[in-house]
């Protein structure tokens, strides 16, 4: 009892509709698209599970007591499992950093841009070399500070000045300054 149209469709020659799209084409595209979107949606949890989890993000800020750091000294604290250098610069180190013309720098920043107003002696940077993530030397007493008096990365020889700016070696950028604020005269909240 098949109509002419049905039998033509069965033999795969039917051209239905004025736009030239057969009902079967539409169903095919719709079904495959639906399955495709569903597959992509199913991938989402597999991808986002790799991102930092809530417990990692919960450690995203840390408080530091800076009252005992004398000029010329510094401490290394842990923030998001990364070292942060908190350094109390001496007037001589500040003068050295300010004496460098910006044109000499690879990543052009002044010391003032890297510290908080009125607290130019507090240089707070990540202790993570911007080359490949090693911890530079120079924050501890007696460590090699390199020829620019700041930090020296032992891995590939990047040298930073007293403002934590890259001066020589493979690192492309200055030591990163994290978000922080002085919550009192002697405490800093990083993160």
């Amino acid at each position: 009892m098949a109509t002419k149209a049905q039998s033509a469709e069965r033999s795969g020659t039917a051209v239905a509709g004025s736009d030239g799209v057969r009902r079967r084409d539409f169903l095919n595209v719709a079904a495959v698209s639906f399955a495709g979107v569903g597959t992509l949606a199913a991938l989402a949890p597999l991808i986002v599970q790799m991102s930092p989890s809530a417990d990692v993000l919960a450690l995203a800020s840390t408080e530091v007591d800076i009252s005992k750091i004398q000029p010329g000294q510094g401490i290394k604290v842990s923030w998001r499992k990364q070292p942060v250098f908190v350094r109390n610069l001496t007037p001589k180190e500040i003068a050295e950093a300010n004496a460098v013309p910006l044109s000499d720098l690879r990543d052009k920043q002044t010391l003032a841009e890297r510290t908080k107003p009125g607290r130019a002696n507090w240089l707070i940077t990540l202790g993570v070399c911007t080359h490949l993530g090693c911890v530079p030397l120079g924050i501890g007493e007696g460590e090699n500070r390199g020829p620019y008096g700041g930090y020296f990365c032992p891995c590939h020889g990047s040298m930073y000045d007293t403002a934590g700016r890259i001066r020589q070696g493979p690192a492309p950028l200055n030591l990163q300054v994290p978000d922080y604020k002085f919550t009192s005269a002697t405490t800093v909240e990083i993160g």
Partner: protein
Amino acid sequence: MSFSWARPYEPKHPAMRWIDERLPLPRLVYGAIGGGYPVPRNLNYWWNFGVLAGIFLTIQIVTGIVLAMHFTASTDGAFNSVNQMLMRDVNAGWLLRYAHMNGASFFFLVTYIHIFRGLYYGSYKAPRELVWMLGLVIYLLMMATGFMGYVLPWGQMSYWGAQVITGFFSAFPLVGEPIRIWLLGGYAPDQAALTRFFSLHYLLPFVIAAVVILHIWALHIPGSSNPTGVDVKDEKDTLPFHPFYTAKDGWFAGAVLLFYALVTYFAPDYLGHPDNYIPANPLATPAHIVPEWYFWPFYAILRSFTVDFILPAKLWGVLAMFFSILLLFFLSWIDKSPVRSGSYRPVFKRFFWLLVIDVIILGYIGGAPINAWRVAVGQIAAAYYFLHFLVILPLVSAFETPLPLPNSITESVLHGEAAEAAPAGQKRPRRGSVATAG
């Protein structure tokens, strides 16, 4: 499989026939690594290293599965589970751990020889391009697996290796840092990274095994290459894989495994680094970070870029390092010479050995502490590496006059390759004196 004279599988035992009729697995094995696979009769010892790589993959999987039974994938427990429990408490744990540690080195060693054999004898050329490319995929997977395995003991080198290698991604502008954080599941290597590396380190060897099957499958379509590079013409040119090459591979595997046992028993830490016996400390970097020896040439290329040029030096280094492997995928089209074997390509042969020396120099530079002259040497060697593939190889394949090829494998075996290489009518030179006969 590949040749018409390949022996068909004839089950001897009724049980095997019963299985073969229902699932032709015995037939598959017979045709792949049994008497049903005809192999050129003139293979030299450089052709043993593929089988050896398979043996070391098996050793790594077997020892690795056992080690995983004793390993604790936590930042507090990993170091002790390896260095205390496995090395001291678990029965034979020290042996399994050292076997796995040195097994990785040997796996890479035989794979490097296998790769250089392919480079010398033109195994990447038509019709074996896919064999070569699948081999490179295996090699990339091996590198990922080796790197993640080295992180698991959570010593200082483990930790800082993970930091430096995931740091490669941060070289890419904008997307780099988010990708790095996503890969690590944190801002620095920590619990999340250790657990996922363990999971993937367990998974990837099985992926490698799967690609190895594809590699062998693709190889068995044209059949194995051979030292003359001349195609197999008839049955006289081949021998069945079993028993001829199983026997040869077997004895050679014995010799190499003896060497492997010597290293494992008497110098187990020779290829390792003492800093990895210090527990990971995220706040202090070892003075001299180096990856495992099998990454040294690439590490040298990475460190060769010291000056910004349009892009930052760091990004150049990372791009060059990735590109140094990626370009090998295009080798079949870079070297267009129709002659496969380096034995018949006098100019190519010299440059091949220069490349070997160059890679060894890169390896030395990559493993040594950095200083001014080493950077300079590394830069020259890295530049030469790219020069070889991008300039020298295309030019050589265009301008070189190759030596005459033997008419067939059989002829070269019966007369000696040196004689075949001499022009017709010339007095036959002594075996092995191709260069003077020129």
